[in-house]
C-alpha cells in the first residue's frame, strides 16, 4: 500500500490525540503524565505502522493466501525490537509500561494498516492477561520474566487462548449456553495432574503458540459446573496442530485447529478449578471485547484513509473523484461515525485504567515495589520462588479480587460488548461504503482497500459474535431491571 499525502488518520502528524479527542483535555489538565504516555504511544505506533507495516502487508497477505502457515517473522521481529508485543509489562521489568489507553492507541494505529498483523503483535498479551485473572503472584512474575527474556533474545513466545470447540462457539462464552453445550474436549484426573483429550478449533496462533490457555471441562454431562482453565505447553506429548485454515481475510494471523491426545498437564497448570472456567473467560472477554471494537475502529479509519487517497488522485475528466458531491457526503457521514465510535472506544480504555486490572499498577504496594526493587531482582528466579510460597502467591489473588470484583467484570463485559459491536459494525460498514466510492479500479489488490473489506467481516464473528455481544449487553443492562 502506498502512503497518502493527505494528512488524515495514519498519515496525520502524531500525536494528535488531544486535537482529535478534545474531551481528553480535561484529563490532560489533571493527569498530564497519563495523556503524555498515550501520546507517546501514538507517535511510536503510528511510526511503526507507517514505516514497517504499510509497505509490507499486501505482500504478506498474498503469501498467506498461497500458504496459510506463512508467518512474517521479519515484521514480527521489528515489533519485538521495540517491545510492542510486551507493551503492558511495567517498564521497570523490561516492558513499555503502557496502560489501557496507550494500548488502545497501539491497536487503533496498527489495525488501521492491517488487522491481522496488528493481532500478531498485540494479541500476544493473552499470556499476561490470562495469568492476571487469577493473579497468583508466582505465576504472574514468571510469565512476565519469560516474556521479557524472550523479547530480549528476539525469540518468539506465543500464547493462544483456546476456548472454541467444533460444536461450541457461543456456547463456550455464555453461562446459559455452556450448560447445554456438547463438549468435544475433556480433562480427567491422573496421578500428579490431568489428562486432556479432544479438539479446539479456530485458535488464533494455535499453530505457533508455545503455551495454550485452554478452557476444558471435566464432566461432559455437566460442562458448566466442571469447566476449568489450564495452561498447556505445546511441546507436551500428544499435542498437535491440525488444519491451519484458509480464510477470507485476516490471513497473516494463523487460525488453527489444535488436537489433544492424552496430553498430560501437571497439577500446578490448572489455573482455574472446575466450575471457574467460564468466569475466567468472562474476565478476559471483559477486556478483549473492547479492544476488538478498537481494532474495528482502526480498520474503518484505515479504509477511509486509503479511499480518500484514491479519490483525491483519481481523475474524472477535469476534476477528481473526491470533488464529486456524492462522494463528499459519503465521506462526511463516515467521518461522523468514526468520530462517535472513537470516543466510545477511548472512553472504554480510560475506564479500564480506572477500574480494571490495569489499576493494579497504580496501587501503592505494587507501585512502590516496582519503584524500589531492582530490575534484576524483579525478574529473578529467586523472587518467583519466593512468590510461589502459599502466602505471597495467594496475596496476589486476594488483592486483585479486592480491586476487581465480579460486578466490575460483568460491567466491563457489558461496556466492552457495546464497544465491540459498535467498532466492528463500523468496520464492516465503512469497508463496504468506501468500495462504493472507489469502484472496481479502486478495489484492485494494489490499493489495499479490498483487503480491508475481506478483513472487516471477521471482527463481527470472533470474540463472541455480535449477536452474543448483544445478548450480554442486554442481560447486564436491561434484564435485571425487568
Amino acid at each position, binding site marked *: 500500500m502506498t502512503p497518502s499525502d493527505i494528512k488524515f488518520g495514519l498519515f496525520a502528524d502524531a500525536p494528535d490525540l488531544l486535537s482529535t479527542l478534545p474531551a481528553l483535555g480535561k484529563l490532560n489538565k489533571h493527569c498530564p503524565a497519563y495523556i503524555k504516555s498515550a501520546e507517546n504511544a501514538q507517535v511510536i505506533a503510528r511510526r511503526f505502522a507507517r514505516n514497517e507495516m504499510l509497505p509490507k502487508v499486501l505482500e504478506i497477505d498474498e503469501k498467506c493466501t498461497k500458504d496459510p502457515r506463512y508467518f512474517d517473522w521479519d515484521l514480527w521481529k521489528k515489533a519485538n525490537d521495540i517491545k510492542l508485543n510486551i507493551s503492558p509489562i511495567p517498564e521497570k521489568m523490561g516492558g513499555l509500561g503502557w496502560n489501557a489507553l496507550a494500548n488502545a492507541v497501539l491497536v487503533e494505529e496498527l489495525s488501521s494498516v492491517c488487522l491481522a498483523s496488528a493481532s500478531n503483535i498485540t494479541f500476544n498479551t493473552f499470556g499476561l492477561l490470562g495469568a492476571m485473572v487469577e493473579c497468583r503472584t508466582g505465576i504472574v512474575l514468571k510469565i512476565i520474566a519469560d516474556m521479557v527474556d524472550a523479547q530480549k533474545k528476539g525469540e518468539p513466545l506465543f500464547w493462544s487462548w483456546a476456548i472454541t470447540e467444533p460444536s461450541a462457539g457461543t456456547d463456550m462464552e455464555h453461562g446459559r*449456553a455452556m450448560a447445554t453445550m456438547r463438549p468435544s474436549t475433556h480433562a480427567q484426573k491422573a496421578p500428579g495432574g490431568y489428562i486432556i483429550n479432544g479438539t479446539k478449533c479456530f485458535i488464533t496462533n494455535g499453530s505457533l503458540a508455545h503455551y495454550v490457555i485452554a478452557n476444558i471441562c471435566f464432566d461432559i454431562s455437566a460442562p458448566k459446573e466442571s469447566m476449568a482453565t489450564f495452561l498447556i505447553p505445546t511441546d507436551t506429548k500428544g499435542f498437535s496442530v491440525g488444519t491451519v485454515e484458509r480464510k477470507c481475510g485476516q490471513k497473516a494471523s494463523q487460525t488453527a485447529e489444535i488436537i489433544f491426545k492424552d496430553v498430560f498437564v501437571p497439577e500446578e497448570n490448572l489455573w482455574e478449578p472446575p466450575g471457574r472456567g467460564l468466569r475466567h473467560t468472562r474476565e478476559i472477554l471483559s477486556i478483549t471485547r473492547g479492544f476488538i471494537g478498537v481494532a474495528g475502529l482502526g480498520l474503518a479509519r484505515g479504509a477511509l484513509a486509503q479511499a480518500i487517497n484514491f479519490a483525491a488522485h483519481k481523475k474524472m475528466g477535469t476534476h477528481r473523484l473526491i470533488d464529486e458531491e456524492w462522494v463528499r457526503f459519503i465521506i462526511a457521514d463516515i467521518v461522523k461515525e468514526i468520530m462517535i465510535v472513537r470516543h466510545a472506544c477511548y472512553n472504554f480504555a480510560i475506564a479500564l485504567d480506572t477500574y480494571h486490572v490495569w489499576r493494579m499498577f497504580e496501587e501503592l504496594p505494587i507501585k512502590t515495589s516496582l519503584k524500589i526493587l531492582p530490575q534484576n531482582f524483579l525478574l529473578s528466579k529467586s523472587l518467583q520462588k519466593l512468590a510461589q510460597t502459599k502466602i505471597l502467591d495467594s496475596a496476589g489473588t486476594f488483592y486483585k479480587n479486592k480491586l476487581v470484583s465480579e460486578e466490575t467484570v460483568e460491567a466491563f463485559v457489558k461496556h466492552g460488548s457495546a464497544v465491540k459491536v459498535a467498532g466492528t459494525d463500523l468496520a*464492516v460498514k465503512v469497508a463496504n461504503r468506501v468500495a462504493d466510492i472507489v469502484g472496481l*479500479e479502486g478495489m484492485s489488490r494494489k490499493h489495499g482497500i479490498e483487503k480491508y473489506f475481506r478483513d472487516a467481516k471477521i471482527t463481527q464473528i470472533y470474540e463472541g459474535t455480535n449477536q452474543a455481544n448483544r445478548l450480554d449487553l442486554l442481560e447486564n443492562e436491561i434484564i435485571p431491571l425487568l
Partner: protein
Amino acid sequence: MTEEIISRIIGECRKFATNEIRKTCLDADFSPDADWVFGIWKKSCQLDLPFLAIPENFCGGGCTPLDCAFILDLLAGECAGIASVYAHHFTACIPLLMAEDEHQNRFFTKLTDKNALPKIAAVIFPPESGDSSLQWIKKNGCVIINGTSRITGSIDLADGFILFLAETGDSEKTQCVWVDRSAKGVTTGEPLQLPGLKINAFGPVLFNDVTITNDNIIADGQTAEKMLKAARSVFYGFTAALAVGAARRAFEKAMDYAEERYQFGKQIIRHQEIQRMLGNMHMKLTAGSAAYRQAFEDQKSKLPFLATDAVPAKIFCTDAAMEIVMDAIQIHGGYGYMHEYGIEKIMRDVKILQLLGGTNSFLAVSHIADKI
C-alpha cells in the same frame, strides 16, 4: 418459445450447474484458470447454453433477456464468476439482435460455429463517467481506434468484443463495432486483481491503430446509440439477476446451516434473532427477484429492448445481495469466514457485482442526473 420449453431449459441448466460447477468452483476461485472456464463452456454448448440469446433461425435458443436472466440467476447460484462470463456473452448478443440481417447472419453464425468452440464474446461500454480514453477516426469506411478501453470483463477469455464508441452529448457519433481479440493492434493490459468474480479477469483492452473494416461496423449514429442503451440496460438487469442468484444460494446455505447447528441447546434456527435475520434475508431475496423481473418485463418479446431502465434493479439487487450474504456468513459463525464453506466467496463475488457498470451510489446519482 413456450413456457414449457423454457422451464425444461432451466431444469437442464440447473442440473448442469450443480453437476459441473458446484464441486470445482471453489478451487477455480482459489487458482483462477481459463481452461476451467473453457471446459465448462464447451460442455455447456451441448445444452446450447451459450446460444440461448441467439434467435432460433440462427440455431440459437431464442430466449428473451428475461429468460437469459433466469438462467444467469441459477448459474450464479453455483458461481457468480462463471455466470458473469455468460452474462457478458449474452449482453454482446443484444446489439446483434437489433442489427441488420446481414450482420446478424455474420456474427450469429460465427458465435454458433460448433467447429470453433469456445466462442466467447464480451462487451466494452464507454465509461459511465463519460470520460473515454479511446480515440477513433473514420477513414475510407473503416474505423481506426487508438487508446485504452475502460475496465472490461472476460479479457482473458473472450474471442471478440462488441465495442461501443461514444462521445458525450453527441449520439450521432456513437459506433457499435465488433473487434476480434486477435485483430492486429489489440492487446489486453494487466488485469485488475479483484477480490471477487476471480475466474473472470477484468482489465483494460489496449488499441493501437486497430482498423475495423466495414463488415465489422455493426451500426452507427442513432441506431448504435439505441443498441448501447439496450445493451447497458440489459447488462444492469443481468447483473441484478446474478446478485439475486448468488444471494439465494447464500440464503439456502444459511437456512440449512441454521437447522444443523446447535447453540444454547437448540437449533440456532429456533433463536428468534436468527429467524429475524433469515426473515429479512428472505424478504430481500423476494423483492430482488421481483425487481429484476420487473426490469425485463417490457422486454419479454419485443425489440428493441429500450423501454426499461434497469439501474434501480441493479442497485437494489446487488445491495440487497450483499446484506443477505453478510448475514449468511454471520449465521455460519466462524465457519462462514473459511474458504471451504464457500460463503465468503459469495460475499467477494457480490462485492464486485455491486461495483460493476458503475458503483451503486454513482449510478443512483447519474440515473437521476441523466433525466434532468
